[in-house]
């Protein structure tokens, strides 16, 4: 995977690695569902991992439109107050 540029991206990538252990290089524009094949349950597990690591609660609606890794990072930054 490319090197993460900030804490949120690093945590999101770590959570993705847990959800998809065999994952290779993932570009920020990679689509989580259609390209990585993550189902809704896997995305949910990934979100919980991010919440635990950043000690935040991410509302369901905050990630409803997050389709790519970059989308997800931006949503998490907004919730974490870092956007």
């Amino acid at each position, binding site marked *: 995977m490319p090197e993460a540029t900030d804490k949120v991206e690093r945590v999101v990538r770590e959570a993705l690695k847990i959800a998809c252990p065999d994952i290779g290089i993932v570009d920020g524009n990679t689509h989580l569902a259609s390209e990585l094949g993550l189902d*809704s349950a896997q995305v949910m597990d990934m979100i919980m991992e991010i919440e*635990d690591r950043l*000690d935040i609660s*991410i509302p369901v609606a905050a990630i409803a439109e997050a389709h790519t890794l970059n989308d997800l990072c931006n949503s998490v930054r907004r919730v974490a107050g870092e956007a």
Partner: protein
Amino acid sequence: MSLLDKFAPLAELRGALAASGSVPSVATPMDEIHSATEGTIDGRRVLFAGTNNYLGLTFDPECQRAAIEAVEKLGTGTTGSRMASGNYAGHRALEREFAAAFNWPAAIVFSTGYQANLGAISALAGQDEYLLIDADSHASIHDACRLSLATTIRFRHNDPENLARRLERLGENARRTLVVVESLYSVLGDRAPLKEFVEVTQRHGAMIIVDEAHSFGMYGPKGLGICAEMGLLDRVDFVVGTFSKSLGGVGGFCVSRHREFDLLRLGSRPYIFTASPPPPVIAAARAALQRLLKGDDLRTQLWRNIERFNSAVTRLGYRTGTQDPGPVTALVFSERSEAIAHWQGLLDAGIYTNLMVPPATPAGLYIVRISLSAAHTDAQITRMIEAFEGLSSRLRPAA
């Protein structure tokens, strides 16, 4: 690209789920129903081990008679909402009977169990309020959250510590939060740590609603559910349930120890904007509730069946979804092909079960779900066990 193109992957999934035989595992066509435990599928008489007919009341003579009488006296439907012309004496009586059974002041009947969750949860938590839901919640709970204007946050499945952290983060807003859990989860059959959930909820000044869809009728004094069994009815705020499982009909209810809950019917869209349940449905539900409250004989037979069946599958080395035997037994497989082979093998042996696959299952598991009934006779349970014995010698169960 047309609106319908997005359904193409579903066609692929449906094809993959079609077992090697001719009978689909999804939306399996039930050609005939002979009793609470037997029917005909694809021209073959089968034993049902995959319904939610936990007490076998779909063919209870009193329930049938009550439904027939109601049709004759009151007609086939109400054609109106409870807020308009559909507020019959039977609906009001059933609500009084639910409230009395729980010894609580308020009860509301909904047209389905799905709508009970939708109607109660979406109205209880609104704008600038919070819903904290278990990550493995039923679709009706997720949909209720979508309908609600509240902020929805999920916590890890059956993890009171995880819930506590989320309530702590909410600070003062925890007092404007509804915690939503199920007492028994329908996919794996696992029970929630309700006592711990209630303690965490109360410590933060929040309220809790417990969905007893798969436990009402089977647990606790008079079958009132797991909250009653655990002595939590003086601490839980709302209990929601369905008529379509142990009560053998269709419909839903929510009861509360808070008198003000009755006002919810004036602000709950899924309660207001739909027709009320038809008279025969309400009459059968009333008869079923009285049957359930009358004695423990059905529960005794059900638990006897559960004990026999679970001992057998454990002896045969199957991995199950929980160590806590209950009316739902989930046989867990890591490979889809193995689960399909078991589902098909059981059907070939004349036993109908449920095949469940991701994303409808947690942790990407493949599951053959067996649900037992008080209406299963000792001989029928023996038949199920023999089918599993035959299969396990042919197909290796998951480690």
